């Protein structure tokens, strides 16, 4: 009935949907610019790469599967402390430390996923918020382990590959964070273009229909939640390793809220939303807080309200609309 030519077409169409675009390649090449243009800001660049990775992990659950979380810092901070403690106790090798800390975050994500998968909407926001606060308070009271409000001191990292020292200028830190971000990005990109990624979008688009087409929604959610927790853990471990300290702030509500703001600013469900959001947010904070630090949240609040009103799909959503308008006017 169906000729092979007719079928090759839908397959080819789906392939063009996920092809690498020139603007993507340009974006990744541009991430190398700080080495040349702003060598004094590599520490900031490293922080941006870490925040971007954290936002990317939130995008997997929020942007693709529609799971709203106000407690995503739990996995970030948990891995941060794990990585910090491993180094403090005498194993300062960065890569194995990264893997162990990310695994720890993944286990935490897998376990909490059983609760997360049962709820949606407001209940989910409250549960993630509660889990986040719970962990932050536990870290605060276990000051014998975490250093409490003073932060975890005595974290000493070995050289990366036994060669590259984590220096004050952040050259190693940024290189390391950027490569890890890129690898995680490739994983995320593959994931969202897979059948599983399509199933996640199905959950976001209509959670009621999914069981009616035979989809095990809760199992899907537990799986993506675990993967996102691992990725948030990688980001947290990177922060601990590149700054050689861990503070309670890594587990704080403020960090969970910031990453949500970053993702929504940039555009949720767009893969690059968290990355672009992190760059804009972190650079703006660096610049504004230099002028008058106490008013920083005034400006970010203004920006957030403006973006949500005028660009409901974030900065990237707005940009995509502009491109479409431009192409239509040319056609």
């Amino acid at each position, binding site marked *: 009935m169906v000729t092979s030519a*007719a079928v090759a077409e839908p397959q080819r169409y789906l392939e063009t949907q996920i092809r690498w675009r020139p603007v993507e390649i340009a974006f990744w090449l541009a991430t190398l610019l700080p080495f040349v243009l702003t060598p004094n800001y590599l520490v900031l660049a490293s922080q941006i790469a870490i925040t971007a990775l954290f936002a990317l992990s939130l995008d997997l659950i929020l942007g693709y599967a529609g799971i709203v979380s106000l407690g995503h810092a739990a996995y970030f901070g948990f891995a941060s402390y794990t990585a910090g403690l491993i180094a403090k106790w005498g194993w300062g090798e960065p890569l194995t430390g990264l893997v162990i800390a990310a695994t720890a975050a993944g286990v935490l994500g897998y376990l909490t996923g059983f609760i997360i998968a049962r709820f949606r909407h407001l209940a989910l926001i409250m549960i993630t918020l509660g889990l986040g606060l719970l962990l932050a308070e536990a870290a605060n009271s276990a000051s014998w382990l975490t250093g409490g409000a003073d932060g975890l001191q005595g974290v000493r990292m070995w050289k990366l590959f036994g060669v590259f020292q984590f220096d004050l200028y952040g050259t190693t830190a940024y290189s390391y964070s950027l490569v890890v971000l890129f690898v995680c990005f490739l994983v995320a990109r593959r994931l969202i273009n897979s059948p599983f990624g399509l199933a996640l979008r199905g959950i976001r688009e209509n959670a009621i229909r999914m069981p009616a087409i035979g989809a095990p929604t809760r*199992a899907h959610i537990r799986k993506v939640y675990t993967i996102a927790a691992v990725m948030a853990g990688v980001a947290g471990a990177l922060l601990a390793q590149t700054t050689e300290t861990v503070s309670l702030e890594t587990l704080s509500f403020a960090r969970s809220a910031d990453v949500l703001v970053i993702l929504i600013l940039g555009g949720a469900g767009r893969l690059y939303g968290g990355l672009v959001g992190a760059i804009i947010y972190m650079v703006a904070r660096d610049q504004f807080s230099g002028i008058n630090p106490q008013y920083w949240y005034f400006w970010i609040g203004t920006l957030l309200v403006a973006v949500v009103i005028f660009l409901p799909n974030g900065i990237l959503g707005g940009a995509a609309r502009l491109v479409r308008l431009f192409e239509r006017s040319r056609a």
Partner: protein
Amino acid sequence: MSTSALSTRGLDKSFGSLVVASDIELDLPPGERYALIGPNGAGKTTLINLITGMLKPDKGRIFLGPDEITLLKPEERVKCGLVRTFQINTLFPHLSALEAVTLAVCERRGYAGSWWEKLPAYGDAIEEAYAILLSLRLAASCYRPTRELAYGQQRLLEIALALATKPKVLLLDEPAAGVPQQESAELFSVIAGLSQEIAVLFIEHDMNVVFRFAHRIIVMAAGRILLQGTPKEIAADARVREVYLGRARHG
């Protein structure tokens, strides 16, 4: 029981003092086209929700073929071959029709859990999805997001999603709801043309359609099955005329 594709025994359900299903006994033979009719609030959609597991019955048992499915989750029942469509479009607004049907095919074939392989690598699933869309005359607009499709096309996509699960029993909740009469006949000719291996139970208010396409009709009123019979028997029954046919039709 082994002769029925779907059967229920003594299904009861009430919300507080409101009885929505009472002692429902139903037998749907393989390949048959049954219509479920009754006035608004008779419990037709509730019965579909009970059978598909979206509501839990207070009492009673449900069988798919010889197997009891009363305790299975909705998605497990779909895997067994029992699937439904919705009266109000319950689709994936931002997925294209092709993506949506491919998703349903992937779930059935067990591909939907794999996250390390690109979707286009699963050519067999895409091919099957495209064939379903082609058979329902949706192929031409299958790349457009669902929310941009015409309403009638969205009703067809409801059926396409259900077919992608390879059902043995298909429950259609007012498949032509909101569709103009002309298109409604077209839609039902699609349903009539479905594989003879699928047993179909459909809810419909338009009596012309019901009498034309149903082999047998089940009449519900106030949570009970009032009567079952061939279209001829139903048309001749005085009680049916009283509770349903005699009154103004509802949409």
